């Protein structure tokens, strides 16, 4: 990790009084601590940062982060984040939520935000279960899993979040593990630094309901792409790596690509840069005249 000297923004700036309400041992704690380190690593000011989330255990994270937070509806973090970013591109916007929130009810919002390449950092806190509603299968639950919604075992093939992100056109695609604080911090920093849509599949075990995909389960399986000669610059290699999700589970950056940002290409932004800062104003006489001439 790059050493940052002369830190200006420290954890003090990001201090917040609200204590996490997650179960002791919940994977989401690891996500929170890495994200808090991440914003300091990239020197984001809390009042210039917005953490957007959906609904779920995971989606409570804005309340524990500091900065501006908006805890939206179930599955709606992405469109809300797009609006914030396009309205005020100077803000740093983090999107967060669970696997149910983002890959179930919120799937379309995620895919379309990714294909537009909005400059957002999206962290899916993936515990392969619906936590807050007390143990139902999620879109990433493995086949056979017995939950309260599947007393006879899950029969739906899980989505592969990495593949979905790649197919959607995310320009930064990574996986990390909530219990591996250091790796998470590295990945999240890169994601925040990335200009474009960054997607992180954050394996974040639910200690209360998921007895299969536990911390140990992942620990036994994960290996770091950084420790191999894998280069995250080729789409097909990334797709191929994404297939590995059995005995071996790669973590790290699968793919990164540089493409124009939505907010840079947007016609209005090209003209006025930042509509919120630019202020709400009446039509100028000139614009008014230009418009009216089309309607007489």
């Amino acid at each position, binding site marked *: 990790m790059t050493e940052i000297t002369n830190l200006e923004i420290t954890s003090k700036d990001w201090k917040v009084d609200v204590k996490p309400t997650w179960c002791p041992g919940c994977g989401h704690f690891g996500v929170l601590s890495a994200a808090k380190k991440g914003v300091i690593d990239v020197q984001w000011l809390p*009042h210039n940062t917005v953490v957007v989330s959906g609904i779920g255990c995971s989606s409570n994270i804005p*309340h524990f982060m500091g900065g501006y937070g908006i805890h939206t509806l179930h599955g709606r973090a992405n469109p809300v984040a797009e609006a*914030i970013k396009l309205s*005020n591109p100077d803000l740093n916007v983090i999107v967060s939520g669970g696997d149910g929130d983002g890959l179930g009810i919120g799937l*379309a919002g995620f895919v379309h935000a990714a294909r537009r390449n909005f400059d957002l950092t999206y962290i899916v806190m993936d515990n392969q279960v619906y936590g807050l509603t007390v143990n139902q299968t999620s879109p990433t639950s493995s086949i056979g899993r017995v939950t309260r919604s599947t007393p006879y075992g899950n029969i739906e093939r899980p989505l592969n979040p990495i593949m979905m992100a790649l197919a959607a056109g995310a320009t930064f695609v990574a996986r990390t593990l909530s219990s591996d604080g250091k790796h998470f911090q590295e990945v999240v920093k890169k994601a925040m630094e990335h200009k474009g849509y960054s997607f992180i599949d954050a394996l974040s075990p639910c200690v209360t309901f998921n007895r299969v995909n536990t911390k140990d389960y992942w620990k036994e399986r994960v290996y770091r792409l950084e420790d191999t000669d894998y280069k995250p610059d080729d789409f097909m290699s990334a797709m191929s790596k994404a297939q590995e999700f059995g005995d071996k589970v790669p973590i790290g950056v699968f793919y990164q690509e540089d493409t124009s940002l939505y907010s840079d290409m947007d016609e209005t932004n090209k003209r006025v840069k930042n509509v919120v800062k630019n202020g709400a*104003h*009446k039509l100028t006489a000139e614009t008014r005249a230009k418009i*009216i001439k089309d309607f*007489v």
Partner: protein
Amino acid sequence: MVNEINIRISGQNGDGIFSSGETLAKICSRSGLVVHGSRSYQSIIRGGHVSYSVRAANHEVRAPADYIDVLIALRGDSFLVDVPLMMKSGGIVLFDSKGSRIKNTDAPDGVILVDMPASEIASRFSDLKIMMNTVLVGASIALYNLDLSIFTDLLAHTFVNKSAEVISTNISAAEAGYKWAKENVKLIEHDITFTTGTETIFLGGNEALALGMLNSGLQSFAYYPMTPATPVGLWLSKYGPMSGCTVKQMEDEINVANYAVGAGYAGARSACATSGGGFALMTEAIGFAAMIEAPVVFIEVARGGPSTGLPTKTEQGDLNQLFGASQGDFPRAIIAQTGVKDGFYLGHEALNIAEKYQIPVLIASDLYMGEHFETLEDLDFDKIPIERGKLIMDTIPEDQRPYKRYIDTEDGISPRTIPGVEGGQHDAGSDEHDEFGNLVSDRRSGYPEAIEVRIQQMKKRMKKMDYLLKELPAPQVEGASADEAKILVVGWGSTLDTIREARSQLEKEGVKTAQLHIKYVLPFHADEVKEILNTYNDKGVKILMVEANFTGQMARYIRAETSFEIKEKYLRYEGENMLPREVLAAMKEVL
């Protein structure tokens, strides 16, 4: 002797009916007339039968015409639809039996059929089928002795980016049509005065809303295409960027609505638009906006329901849906657009209310309202200032941190910080929360203190409705007093001018009438409305509800608010534009 121009052009979708109709409308506008333009079309891209009607006069014409005087019939089906429904003795049908292969020309007695070789004339100038429209438009304006040069100027303007030849060909065709009519048809006698020189803006109800919002500092607009609301988004897609308004077509209406809430939260003046089915998908986000107290304007341009229903036909059938949008009780405003010009000012007003009260404002419009066009004389771009309410952009002093975003206040409105404001950080949560924005739904709910917080925040939010009501003008009766009137017609939204015109027809027959029209639906001036209804009722005045839906949703709404049951109702739900003569007939039935 007539005092109005009433022309309709009709044919298949794909025949260029709308652009020819618009040309006709603009010729009238540029001739100094007040103009009303309205369309009829179907959910099909080619084929079917569509029309554009132009009504123009020196006096105010703000409703669809009762009858057409001149029909340009491009297809045989014009004789199946427009002639039987809209024409009477003395009316003229311009058509080309050969060029359009029209066989059946049944028409009511006295309708004058002018079989014009329009196609043949057009072919002299161009092979393009569309040239026939130019010829026919030329002929139709000749019937009123409108100035041909206005038409040719308009053609030059329209084809400004095309070659000189295109322009001159069109002009020649127009001239030829004009000439043919002058020579072959008895012109219409009228006492309309034409003037030139004024340039009056001619706009649809949807576009007027868009223009109003843009002039009121709109900064964010989101939409997903849905007839008849799409024009708001399309218009802003083009003109928004010229004035600093971002416009985003999303992947569906759920995300449109949530996007709009996000933009409002971020500090942009924010709006979105849709129609009934799309609005159904938006409803969850409306409660969300109210809960986090983000200002957003939701425009709902209703069409024929239920479900996909009649997507290109009009209806005022979504009031229940607007009122019942999203779970629980929360503050929201519902305002019905009552005219095209009204839409322009409503655009300002809705954004101001949304920002001042930090609530969702729902605008109720409908297909007729949104998709008909009017000349807008004397638009005042400076009439309504931009009001942003308690929006804090400055750094929050240390002693106010952490910031109480949802602080309880006298009027229920809490000073609002937006991301970027130092020290104003807070969490905006869709769960119930305390003054700081911290949740009371998780570990705290059920504790006596959390119960108090809940009660405080519910009251705080709902207080806004009382303050808002005070600010809104109460509805007033137009027309005769309770002592004089024989009938009081109650309407809402888009029917304002149609009812006005029906009343004035009845007044001409010597019957005194009055009208109560609802624009501000929620919060509602229940006391005032009740007072009016009772006053008229007590004097034995007949009261008639006029609205375009099956169950009488506004009548029911009024009853819910005032206990007053309006028993007589003229309810329309077959989708066509409501005509003054139809309202008149309904009034007569009651009398």
